[in-house]
């Protein structure tokens, strides 16, 4: 079989493949990708509302569930086996600012680490306020 204008076609394909995969190469060799996420965990609290593995993979689903539960169904506290879940004697609310941030108090050292690494931009913080009122 003879491929007419073979070298033109092959070069074209190589150029196309290189161009198409350019973002992968750029990210692979950029300085940013060398920075691995480094999460700072709270020292004083040992127990999260779910185990670490679940939170790693599904915290966004949990937060979405909390959002709908609180705003739309007016169920605001975390209930386990018919009892309110407590933290330091206080009932735990399903709330980003009133529950999560009580322990994970530094957003930059926790949330942002993975979100920046993966280049995801959750819009939680467009409205919800980082503790200390530092946002302006």
């Amino acid at each position, binding site marked *: 079989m003879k491929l007419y204008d073979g070298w033109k076609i092959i070069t074209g394909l190589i150029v196309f493949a290189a161009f198409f995969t350019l973002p992968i190469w750029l990210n692979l060799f950029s300085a940013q990708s060398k920075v691995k996420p480094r999460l700072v965990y709270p020292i004083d609290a040992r127990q999260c509302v779910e185990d670490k593995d679940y939170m790693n993979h599904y915290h966004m689903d949990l937060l979405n569930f909390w959002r709908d539960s609180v705003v739309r169904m007016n169920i605001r506290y975390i209930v386990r086996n018919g*009892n309110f879940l407590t933290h330091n004697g206080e009932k735990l609310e399903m709330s980003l600012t009133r529950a999560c941030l009580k322990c994970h108090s530094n957003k930059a050292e926790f949330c942002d680490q993975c979100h920046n690494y993966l280049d995801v931009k959750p819009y939680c913080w467009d409205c919800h306020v980082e503790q200390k009122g530092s946002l302006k």
Partner: protein
Amino acid sequence: MIDRRNFLKIVSFGGGIYLASKWTSNLISQNETQKVPQSGLTAKRWAMAIDVQKCEQTPNCKECILACHSYHNVPEFNNPKDEIKWIWKDKFHNAFITQENQYLPKGLNHQTVLLLCNHCDNPPCTNVCPTKATWKREDGIVMMDWHRCIGCRYCVAACPYGSRSFNWRDPRPFIKKINPEFPTRTRGVVEKCTFCAERLARGEMPACVEACPSKALIFGDLEDPGSEIRQILAERFSIRRKPELSTSPEVYYLV
């Protein structure tokens, strides 16, 4: 070989059992949700009464407005076109535009009255919302889900009381002191009074009711005959804004 008659018997019997099991499992799961322990203040129908006379004794008082707006991160633009308001004051003749009696008690027309979302029993704003970002809760509060609001402003047009404000600009730089316990809003979202749904859930009264120094705001359950609001409504004559629109507003003005 099954004949037609037996086939129909078997199918309808099986279907009946399936439906019955589904119905009972529904009943069981309903009972389970009822096991969630209750907390905070609850009511069958939240409503508010505003004592116009008491309020008028201190015409320059803005405690309720300040308390509400600082708690809920309401921005302050110095431009009436961008204004965001949850609770505000206006003249009686502007608020009660369809009060057509020519000879009202002296001065009433120029008194200032407190205005806020009326949490209507038949709210026109929720009917027009295309995303169900606003709806009437079972306890009567006309609630908003800012996550869902797409900023179409149908509700702003539908509300006959001007209770809804639209964020034309990013509100954050215009909030004097951000309360980190409550979210701000973004540009392109409608906002209004929510009868402090989040405070009620924690067992606290609405911020404006708590802040009023002359106790001119009465908040309570309209369907509880023993509640303070029912007693005061039975005692004193009250009017509501634009009742002829049959929106059934639930903010009562004691005049």
